[in-house]
C-alpha cells in the first residue's frame, strides 16, 4: 500500500517526507512504548504510535523504520519534526485513534512483518552484587 493511500485513508497530515508519498509498504506495527518497538527485528516496518518524543525518531532510525504514523491527533514539537527531517524519517499524523488506524490498515490487508527470531541468548551471565570492574 502506498503512503499517499494511507494519508487519504486515515485523513493524515504529512509532517515531513512529502517526497516519500509513493513509497510502498507491506507491514506495520503498533506500539507506544519504545522498548516494545526496539524488540522488533524486522526492518522496513511502518510504526504506528502515539509517542511524539524525539526518542521515537532515534529509534526509528536505528531500526530502519521507513515511516511513522502518529495517532490520536498529538503533534510532535517543531524541534522533533526538524530532527525527523534531518534523519530522513517521514512522519504523517492522524487524529484518528490507534484502534481506528490499525483497524483501517488491517482492513486494507496490511499485516505485521515477520520478525527474525533472535538467536538463543548468549553466554556470559549475571554477576550479582560484586561491585564494579
Amino acid at each position, binding site marked *: 500500500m502506498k503512503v499517499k493511500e494511507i494519508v487519504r485513508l486515515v485523513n493524515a497530515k504529512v509532517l515531513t517526507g512529502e517526497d516519500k508519498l509513493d513509497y510502498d509498504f507491506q507491514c*506495520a*506495527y*503498533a*506500539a*507506544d*512504548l519504545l522498548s*516494545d518497538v526496539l524488540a522488533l527485528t524486522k526492518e522496513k516496518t511502518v510504526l*504506528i504510535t*502515539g*509517542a511524539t518524543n524525539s526518542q521515537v525518531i532515534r529509534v526509528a532510525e536505528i531500526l530502519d523504520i521507513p515511516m511513522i504514523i502518529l495517532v*490520536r491527533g498529538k503533534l510532535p514539537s517543531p524541534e522533533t519534526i526538524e530532527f525527523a527531517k534531518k534523519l530522513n524519517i517521514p512522519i504523517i499524523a492522524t487524529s484518528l*485513534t*490507534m*484502534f*481506528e488506524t*490499525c*483497524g*483501517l*490498515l*488491517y*482492513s486494507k490487508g496490511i*499485516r*505485521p512483518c515477520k520478525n527474525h527470531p533472535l538467536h538463543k541468548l548468549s553466554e556470559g551471565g549475571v554477576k550479582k552484587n560484586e561491585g564494579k570492574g
Partner: protein
Amino acid sequence: MNLKNLVKELNLQLLHPEANLEREVTGGYVSDLLSDVIANAPEGSIWITIQKHSNIIAVAVLKSLAGIILTGKIMPEKETLEKARKERIPLISSQDNSFITAGKIYKLFSQNK
C-alpha cells in the same frame, strides 16, 4: 456486541473467571500510555495493550472499560491478576500483537453494523 461473543469470535483466552462477560462492548481502544487511556478511552470500550502491571486495573475501573486484552502473549503480573479478580475486570489474553488484535476487533465491529 458483548464481551462473551468477542472472546469467542476471536478465540481469545480469559485469564480469570470472575468477570462480567455479558457487558456490552462499545468499541476498542489501543494504547500503552496510561495517561492517554485515562484522558481518552471511551466508557465501555475494550482496552488493548501490552501493559501488564497492576495499575491497569485501576485505570479500567476508573474509566468503566469493558475489559483489558493483553496482546502478544504477554501475561499479567500476579498482582494484576489478583486485582482483576477482585474488581471483576475481565482480563483477556491475545496471541496476536496489538495491531492484529485491533484489526480483527475493528473488522468484527464493522461486520456487525
